[in-house]
């Protein structure tokens, strides 16, 4: 009977209309954004950030300015100037560090390739998307100080990925320390009479050892 | 001669004058609508409500729109460039003559001198009964005429057989 299709359609919209009052949970698909926030999935990625261990962003910065990410970044939005001086990294081996590390977030397309190619787990993807700014040029050009965030933040937003990274780094640390202890013992054995002052480990940095072999990322 | 009547008569005459003399045809058509509406209002002012409202409904509602459609389709939208009429003096003379004739006929008519008769209480029901009893033959005749007219218009508007496919789905 012509006209029944239209009636069927009307019944459908009426069901949705009434449904939005009776059980809003299934029917209302939208949430009130600023007040209620949707829980982001763990893998969600917005813009990169630099990870640093410990508390001091300068000293604990994992990045060793190897500029791999700068070369691999498709839109070329990372800009690194390597520093002349060196600082010891987490296994104590002196490494360069970036004097300047800029990411132009207005160019970055959050494709996360820099995270994949980074051998030092120094750059990860953040989940903060409320970066609106009125300044069109410098506003979204983030410098090293704004990019660096503690490892605890990384653990908060990507728990599983952070967990794997930390266990791997801890394993590298033991291997490095074991190698260092063996080397120290060998050095002590070969030069037993001459008591060279063992390079006493500073409070925070353990004795020097071979740099962590860059294992392919997970 | 109440104030309202003078006002309405002025509106109607002014709109009619504008309809005749305006250069832009669309403005002229709209002034024509204004004068027809004015006429309807005068009927209402004379307590002939049914007639006045019917006038507005038929003329302002339908006839005016048809005139406007006609103006649109006949490329009449550019304002007239040339002179309004070839011989204004001849035209003027004829109008004066005609006006004089009309005034003479009106002043001579007996009805002007007789006292105005009491307004007859005409109800819509009476009009209806009159139409369907005494004037039923002319009513059906007009109906037939109008149907023939609409059929004729439809036939003219039909695209010539095979000249181009009608745009409606098969």
């Amino acid at each position, binding site marked *: 009977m*012509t*006209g*029944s*299709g*239209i009636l*069927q*359609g009307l*019944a*459908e*919209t009426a069901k*949705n209309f009434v449904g939005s009052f009776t059980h809003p949970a299934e029917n209302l*698909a939208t949430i009130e954004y600023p007040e209620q926030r949707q829980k*982001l*999935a*763990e*893998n*969600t*990625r917005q813009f990169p950030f630099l990870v640093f261990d410990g508390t001091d962003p300068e000293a604990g910065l994992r990045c060793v300015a190897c500029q*791999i990410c700068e070369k*691999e*970044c*498709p839109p070329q939005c990372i800009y690194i100037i390597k520093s002349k001086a060196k600082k010891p990294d987490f296994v104590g081996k002196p490494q360069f560090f970036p004097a300047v590390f800029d990411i132009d977030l207005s160019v970055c*397309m*959050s*494709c*996360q*390739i820099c995270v*994949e*190619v980074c051998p030092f787990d120094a750059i990860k*993807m953040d989940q903060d998307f409320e970066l609106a700014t009125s300044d069109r040029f410098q506003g979204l050009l983030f410098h090293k100080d704004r990019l660096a965030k503690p490892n605890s933040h990384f653990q908060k937003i990507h728990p*599983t990925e952070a967990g794997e990274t930390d266990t791997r780094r801890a394993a590298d640390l033991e291997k490095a320390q074991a190698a260092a202890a063996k080397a120290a013992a060998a050095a002590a054995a070969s030069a037993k009479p001459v008591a060279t002052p063992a390079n006493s480990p500073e409070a925070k940095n353990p004795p020097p050892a071979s740099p962590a072999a860059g294992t*392919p990322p*997970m | 001669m109440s104030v309202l009547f003078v006002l309405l008569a002025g509106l109607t005459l002014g709109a009619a004058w504008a309809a005749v003399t305006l250069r832009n045809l669309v403005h002229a058509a709209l002034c024509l609508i204004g004068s027809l509406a004015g006429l309807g209002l005068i009927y209402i002012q004379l307590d002939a409500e049914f007639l006045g409202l019917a006038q507005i409904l038929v003329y302002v509602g339908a006839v005016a729109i048809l005139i406007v459609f006609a103006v*649109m*389709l*006949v*490329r*009449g*939208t*550019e304002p007239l460039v040339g002179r309004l009429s070839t011989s204004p003096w001849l035209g003027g003379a004829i109008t004066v003559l005609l006006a004089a004739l009309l005034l003479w006929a009106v002043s001579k008519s007996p009805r002007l001198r007789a006292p105005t008769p009491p307004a007859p209480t005409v109800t819509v029901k009476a009009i209806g009964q009159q139409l369907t009893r005494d004037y039923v033959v002319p009513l059906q005749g007009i109906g037939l005429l109008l149907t023939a007219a609409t059929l004729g218009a439809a036939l003219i508007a039909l695209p*010539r057989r095979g*000249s181009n*496919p009608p*745009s409606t*789905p*098969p």
Partner: protein
Amino acid sequence: MSYPGAPAISFQPRYAPDGTEQDGELLEVSLGPQHPSTHGVFRMDATLDGEKVVRLKPVFGYLHRNHEKIAEGASYLAAMPYTDRLDYFCSLTSNWAYALTVEKLAGLAVPERAEYLRVITAELTRIQNHACVCGFLLQDMGALGTPLMYAFRERERVLDLFESLTGARMMCNYLRFGGCRCDAPAGWLDAVRGVVAEFPRFLDEFEALLSNNEILLARTQGIGAVSAAQAINGGLTGPLLRAAGINYDLRKVDRYGIYDRFEFRIPLGEHGDVFDRYMIRVLEIRESLKILEQALKTIPDGPIIDPKAKLRGFRPKAGEAYGRLESPKGELGFYLISDGGPNPYRYRIRPPSFINLTLLEDMCLGRPLADVVVILGSIDIVMGEVDR
């Protein structure tokens, strides 16, 4: 008009006084690029006789971003995130087409679990794309947003799945040469099973609202019909070709990936008009759901990337390869020539919606203006893919 030289807008009567038919004043109307229903930045210069279309010249290129030249300058890996931006509704099928071609070029093998994940994500993309297209088609027909909002509500569920797997809703950048970037997080496969189980309810609601709605039937049946021969000569692919009745679906023709393990059917129309295209897309969603159910039942564990595949400094041996797959819009093909260097010598894309668009004028001749918009909606173009 009030200022000199103003264009006179008026119409000439179709029949001159002496009865001969004369070519009435044709009205030149430009639909777009700022037109509300041209699915992105796309312009159509239509010449109307009354309201019937006499000539229709599509004009595009407004969204040309020089994608192919950029890909030739960048490394193979760097081009992968750009393929998301081609057809931004189906980024995962574009990723897969590019990965397929590079694997054919470099001769990489893909582990089992990665193949399953590729099929699952591709079919999820097909589902949300077809649902959106039907929603946009109804939006062009004047149904103020209701079908579109129902389609978007379901699409959100699929995009949430993409976000939890790849990290982004639309710009997934998930596939790598020789497998996938990361494995499915815990509980993801169960979430997909939930969405797949929930989807038929939405389809029944969508069909009840639309499929036998008399106004929809009147507005779409017999409109923009394309004959089988015309479709083949015009190079149409995808739902448009199958609506004209030709059984050509790359998942069955090429049997790429592991599609030969799944049992599903290809819906075919007869008239090739807008209604058939709409129904074909709805039926294809139901078939994709079947594929997903089977894939989710038999997905194995195991590695998700070929260990031999190198991420950086990937230099395939010199040669050329053409890989194609059945994207929701049609046959999406990548043609790569490698000279052994880190970046492709030539990087060419066969965009399905661009080639489907070439037949727009043939479908629209003689139709009133309102149909042109509906026909364009039924072709389902995405300007990112048309202009590249």
